[in-house]
Every structure is written in structure tokens, then in C-alpha cells.
């Protein structure tokens, strides 16, 4: 087999087009920014026949040009991917081969977008997202990695090789290197081999499963903790608020990396502190559900009792099997009753990320509750004689959902960055784990000689976080329009 080039024969036609398109786009953006300071603003002129005309002058011309060339560049990029999927393997180079590997993701993405756009008027805030281009781009990037994680993690698709398997002779080889003769597996290392001769492309793909599994879940837990503590702090105020705010500020004043070093080292894990912290932090979801259901249905005991028993029973069982780990200080469930054992390293990482995130969520929720408790509907509920927890969870919380949803997206991105930071310092996750932070850490040590190993995970992490930030921006914009 021959080594693959980046774009194969397709590049002869498309590469010049792409570089011209991108160059013109960049130049017109710069001119437009400089002009915007001096040129008169664009105005609307109403014509005699009742139509409106945009009068932009030079600035308007450059704005149109920027737009046109942006979409042209985008179209060429899409063309690379489409050709890669359609044309036979090898003729479209590394980019095409990667596009072909991602085929299930493309199909899933197209299906999602088509159905969502068709029914967008019936889908509430989610549907409104498809009115903003920024929001759609962000949503697309996020869904790309979610689908990648699902297809790679559950169905073993997309990845070309085993993420931890080493193939001798391919150590630090450049992207597109072919397999040794007579090897029956996938014919190339698409993005080259790392310093232990593992396939970088497959490691990047499997890395997404770890991030997509941990980051949203950790953020949800942080939100449960932050909401359960922040609502009463903002609603009641007083001494409770003072104490809780002091504790939150205490954690926030810690340099995050110092905290990670203090919590995630093997010595600390041996003392069992992370296990106790897990036991403490994971109680909050149970408290949250118990209180919110009870406050809503306590007037109908016949409905509430079975509901509480079923939901709390299931949650408690999950909780117990989550915190009871073989090999740590908390190991009390018999193996038959223990539903699952989370890998020790992942649990520690999870706990510390939740711990770092919850004070910020607490502060946001507290601020929102402080603001919303003076509203009329709260006064009305108080007059009706509703309990405090009912007001907090069923009156204040739903009305705070807008900012919270936006912050949720941003916070998943921040959690992803934190996970990468942990990996970057080699903390928590096992060293051979394919998560992006660890892979960047592995690759940076030889960065001045071999550039290609750390770049794919770095770009992957960047695109996921960027997608989440754009998504949050789109959601904020659309929710403000109401």
C-alpha cells in the first residue's frame, strides 16, 4: 500500500480554490473591520414603489463580499467531505478517508437537522435554535461529537484501529502511513502513529466517548448541587446565605490546579477522601427529586407515596452502587446488589470536577433566586399558602430556566476544558486512556520534533468547546427574543 496524501487527486482541483476563497475572505474581513470605523453606517432607503433598499456604500459591499466568500469557502469544505464519502477509498486522501469513516455520523446529523428544521415551530426553544446560523453551527459541532461518541462507544464504528493497540514500525509515523505488509486490518494510520505506535485517529475518536460520557453528567450533578443549595440561600437569605456563600467563595478562591493536585493524587485516593466526597455530593440529586416531588404532590398521598417509593428506591440503589466501589474505603454492597463499578480513576475525576463546578452554579442560582423572589407570582403562591420548597422548585426554578440552560451549555464546555486540564497534568485517568487531555499531554513532550500526535485531540477539544459556546450564544440570542 502507498502512503496517503492529505487530499489525494481531489486536491489538485479543490486546494487552489480553497486557498483563494479563504484568502479573499480573510482580506475582506480585515478591510471591513477597518472600514467600519470610518465609513458611514448602512441605512435603509425607501423607494417610491414601496420597496426598501439597503444603501451600504463601500462598507456594505465588503459585508456582502465577506458573506459570499464565507459561504463559498464553507461550500468547498463540504465538497471535500462529500467527495470523500462518495468516491472510492484512497482517491481522496486522508481527508476523504476520514470523511468516509464518519459516514454514520453524517447520516445521523442530516436526519437530525432535517427533522428539527421541518418541525421547528412546534419544538419551543429548541426549534428556535434553528433560526440562528451561529446556533445551528454550534449545535452541529456538538451533535457531531455526540454521534461520534455514540457510534464509537456503543457500536464500535468509525474508529479504524484499537485505541491502545501498538503496531510495531509505526511509531511517530506521519499521517497517512500504510500498515506493514501483510497486515489484514484497516490499510492506513489516517492521522499517523503516536510515540507508542498507536493510531492517533482512533484514539481521538475514542477520546470523545470519555468526554461525552463525563462532561454532561458531571455538569448535571454540579447543577443539582448548586440548585439544591442556591435556591434556599437566595430565597431565605440571612445567616444560611452568609455561610453558604462563604463556603462557595472559599472553594472559588482556590487555584483549580492546586485543588486537583490535592484531590486527585493516588495518595489522597488511598485515604478515601474522594469516596467520601462522592458519597456527599451524589446525595444531592436524591434530595432534589425527593423534595421537589414531595412539595408538589404532598396533598395527594395516594399518588405521592408510590411515586416517591419507586423513584427514590431506584435512585438510592443507583447511588449506593455508584459510591460502593471494590478497592476503596466504601465497599459495603454485596457484589450481587452492586449494579456497576465505575473505574476508580474516572470516579475521582468526576467528583473533583463536580466539586469545582458547583460553587459557580450555586452563585448563579442564588443570584437568580434573589431576583425572582420579589416577583408577583411568588407573592401569589405565598398567599395561596404554598410551602417554601414548592415556591422555590416549582415557581422560581422554572422561571429561571433561560439563563440556566445557557449556562448549562457553557458549563459543559468549561467542564470539558477542566477534564482536559486534568489529563494535561496527567492526573486521575490512567496514562493509556485515549481521552483528549491525556493524549495532548503525551504528545506535547515531543512537540518540537513530532507535531502530529497532539494536534488532532487539541482540535477535537477546541471544536467541541467551541460548539458548546456557539450553541449557548445562539440559545441566549433566541431566548432574549421572547
Amino acid at each position, binding site marked *: 500500500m502507498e502512503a496517503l496524501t492529505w487530499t489525494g487527486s481531489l486536491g489538485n482541483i479543490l486546494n487552489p480554490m480553497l486557498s483563494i476563497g479563504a484568502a479573499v475572505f480573510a482580506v475582506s474581513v480585515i478591510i471591513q473591520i477597518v472600514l*467600519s470605523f470610518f465609513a458611514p*453606517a448602512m441605512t435603509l432607503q425607501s423607494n417610491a414603489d414601496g420597496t426598501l433598499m439597503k444603501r451600504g456604500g463601500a462598507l456594505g459591499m465588503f459585508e456582502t463580499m465577506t458573506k459570499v466568500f464565507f459561504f463559498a469557502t464553507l461550500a468547498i469544505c463540504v465538497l471535500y467531505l462529500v467527495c470523500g464519502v462518495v468516491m472510492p477509498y484512497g482517491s481522496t486522501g486522508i481527508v476523504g478517508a476520514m470523511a468516509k469513516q464518519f459516514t454514520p455520523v453524517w447520516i445521523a446529523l442530516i436526519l437530525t437537522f432535517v427533522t428539527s428544521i421541518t418541525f421547528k415551530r412546534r419544538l419551543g426553544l429548541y426549534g428556535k435554535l434553528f433560526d440562528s446560523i451561529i446556533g445551528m453551527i454550534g449545535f452541529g459541532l456538538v451533535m457531531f461529537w455526540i454521534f461520534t461518541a455514540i457510534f464509537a462507544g456503543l457500536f464500535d464504528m468509525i474508529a479504524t484501529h484499537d485505541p491502545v493497540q501498538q503496531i510495531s514500525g509505526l511509531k511517530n509515523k506521519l499521517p497517512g502511513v500504510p500498515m506493514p505488509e501483510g497486515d489484514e486490518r484497516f490499510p492506513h494510520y489516517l492521522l499517523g502513529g503516536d510515540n507508542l505506535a498507536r493510531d492517533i485517529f482512533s484514539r481521538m475518536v475514542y477520546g470523545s466517548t470519555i468526554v461525552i460520557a463525563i462532561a454532561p453528567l458531571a455538569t448535571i450533578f454540579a447543577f443539582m448541587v448548586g440548585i439544591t443549595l442556591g435556591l434556599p440561600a437566595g430565597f431565605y437569605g440571612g445567616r444560611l446565605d452568609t455561610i453558604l456563600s*462563604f463556603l462557595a467563595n472559599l472553594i472559588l478562591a*482556590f487555584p483549580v490546579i*492546586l485543588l486537583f493536585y490535592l484531590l486527585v493524587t493516588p495518595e489522597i485516593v488511598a485515604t478515601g477522601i474522594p469516596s467520601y466526597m462522592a458519597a456527599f455530593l451524589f446525595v444531592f440529586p436524591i434530595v432534589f427529586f425527593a423534595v421537589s416531588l414531595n412539595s408538589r404532590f404532598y396533598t395527594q398521598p395516594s399518588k405521592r407515596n408510590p411515586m416517591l417509593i419507586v423513584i427514590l428506591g431506584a435512585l438510592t440503589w443507583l447511588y449506593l452502587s455508584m459510591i460502593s466501589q471494590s478497592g476503596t474505603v466504601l465497599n459495603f454492597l454485596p457484589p450481587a446488589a452492586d449494579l456497576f463499578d465505575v473505574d476508580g480513576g474516572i470516579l475521582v475525576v468526576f467528583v473533583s470536577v463536580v466539586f469545582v463546578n458547583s460553587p459557580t452554579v450555586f452563585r448563579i442560582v442564588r443570584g437568580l433566586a434573589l431576583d425572582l423572589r420579589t416577583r408577583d407570582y411568588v407573592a401569589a403562591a405565598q398567599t395561596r399558602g404554598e410551602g417554601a420548597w414548592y415556591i422555590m422548585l416549582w415557581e422560581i426554578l422554572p422561571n429561571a430556566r433561560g439563563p440556566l440552560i445557557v449556562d448549562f451549555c457553557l458549563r459543559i464546555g468549561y467542564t470539558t476544558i477542566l477534564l482536559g*486540564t486534568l489529563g494535561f*497534568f496527567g492526573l486521575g485517568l490512567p496514562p493509556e486512556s485515549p481521552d483528549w487531555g491525556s493524549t495532548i499531554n503525551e504528545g506535547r513532550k515531543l*512537540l518540537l520534533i513530532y507535531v502530529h500526535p497532539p494536534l488532532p485531540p487539541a482540535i477535537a*477539544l477546541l471544536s467541541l468547546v*467551541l460548539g458548546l459556546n456557539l450553541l449557548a450564544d445562539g440559545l441566549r440570542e433566541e431566548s432574549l427574543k421572547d
Partner: protein
Amino acid sequence: MGLFILRRVGVMLLTALCLTFIVFWLTNLYPNLEKLAKTQGNFRMSDEAVTSYLTNRGYQQALPVKYGQWLGVLPGYVIEGSDGEVRSRCEEGKTFCGVIQGDWGFSTVFKDNVSTIVSTRLGATGKLMFWVMMVMVPGALLIGVLAGMREGSGTDRTLSTASIVSTATPEYVSGVILIAVLGTKVIIDWDTIPFKGSATSAIDDANFENFFLPVITIALYGMGYIARMTRASMTEVMTAQYIRTARLKGVSFPKIVIRHALRNALIAPFTVIMLQFPWLLNGVVIVETLFNYKGFGWTLVEAARNNDIELLLGVSIVSVFVVLVTQLISDIGYVFLNPRIRIS
């Protein structure tokens, strides 16, 4: 105002006490002490040897006692060890030696006084931070003002998207990409490589070649956030009455922006810039590790890796101090800059 500052300083001291106690507690857990004994003594120590090593050096005292000694409110230990040698925490003739007395202890990794290490490293990081600020603040303000002066225009959209991209790029990603592109010949075939991918030499002799990449890496991450805050405040100012009045008077657009809008639009970003310091501290740790620049953040990582208790405590005091003081300054500065706010 005086009472307000006094109360804030009180809360600050309490926070610093709590934080150092937490660090003290976590670093003094037995497995950590065992590791310390083994790295300082030898790795094949028996359990008894570890215990006697720790007892002889005062590590086996009760936690509050040790903390009190470190703080300088309890007399330092004098222990006659099992090997007959008498070790004491303080120098001859002193009973109290702790942070309050200005004695920060001795680093077990660097074999030097903590105060010397912290001050030299802090100087190195100060140099880095100075240049970061010089790049980040004007750049971010310029981007924010340009984006915010015409809300919704093409420039606004382009620059806002650019600032979102910069906030979405953590230092370890942008650092790796920047080194790959500007520090090696692999991606762009430079005749001479423009920048160095390592800043080790910048400690003594910082120049454009070895200092540009670390500075720009930290600056980029903070820039987007400040720019977005500036944009938000600028768009708000541009809709104000006095701007409309200026327009109706026929003042030219550049003059409106520079004379009338800018000053009021820069109040809010001031707070944000001050509150960026704690974040920058994080970035400093990552960038100093990535570029091997032996400053404060690098020291933090080394101290944490080797469980160097007293150095770690010194480092955490300084960083907590930085965080809390910047919060205080941002609160006070906001009151001074914005006459509409008065603290009763």
C-alpha cells in the same frame, strides 16, 4: 467606605486561614507524609523507619498543633529523635517561627527557603503577567469597542465570533497549536523558525523570540472574555441619550466613539479585567508547564507533585492573596469609577 474595606479584609483573612488549613490538612494526610519520607529518605524504607523519620521531624504531632506552629502562634517543636539527635523547628534562640514571624519554612524539593523561592519565581511570573496584560488589555478593549459600536453589523458578528473562539480555546490547546505552527518547520516551511517553543531561556533574557508564544497563549484565552464584556457595555452606552444628542449635533462618528462613548464604556470591563487575575493564574500554571518557564506556576506544579508541604502552603497563600486582593480592588475601583454607586 472604611468599614466596608475593613469587613472585606476581615473576610479575606478568614478565607486565607480556612484555605491554608485545608491545604495543610490535605498535605499532612498520612499517605502523603509517607511519600514525603520515602522521597526524602529512601524508597525502600520500612514502615518503622518511616514512622521514626516522621516523628523525629515533628510530622507526627496533632494537626492543629502543627498548623499553629506553621502559623507562628504556637512554639516550634524541639524533639529529641530516636537516633539521639535533637531537632527543632526554629533556629537557635527563637521559640516562635511561623508565617506571622516571616519564616515561611524550608522547601524539601529545592532545598531553599520558601520565601526566597516564592519571591524569585513570583518575579519571573510577574514579568510574564506584565507582558500578558500589555497584549491582552489593549487588544481586548479594541476588539470589544469595535464590535460594540455598531451592534449587529458585519464587524460585530465577525469579532464576536472571534472572541467566542478565543474563549473556547484553553491554553493547552492554543499553546500546542501555536508551537506547531510558529515554533516548528512542520506545518509551515519557515526559512528560519520565527519563535521558540520553549521559554526556559526567557527567565534571564526575555526577548521577542522566546517570550512571544507564552505571552500570546495566555493573552488569547482571556482576551475573548474581556472583549465580550467590553462589547456588551459599549452597545449599552451607544444607545444612551447623550450619544444621540452628540449625533444630532453633527459630531463625526469616530469622535463620538472616542470622546463620548469610550470613557463610560470602559467602567464595566475594569471589574472584569481585575477578576481575570485568578483565571490568569490558572493559565500561568498551564503555560509555564507547557513552555517550561520556571516561574510561579511551574513551582506550584513541582511542589504539588513532590508534596513539598511548606512550599505548597507558601504558594497557596500567595495565590489566595492575589485572588482576594484583586476582588477587593475591583469592588473598590468600581465604586470610585462609577459615581452612581454608593456604599451605605
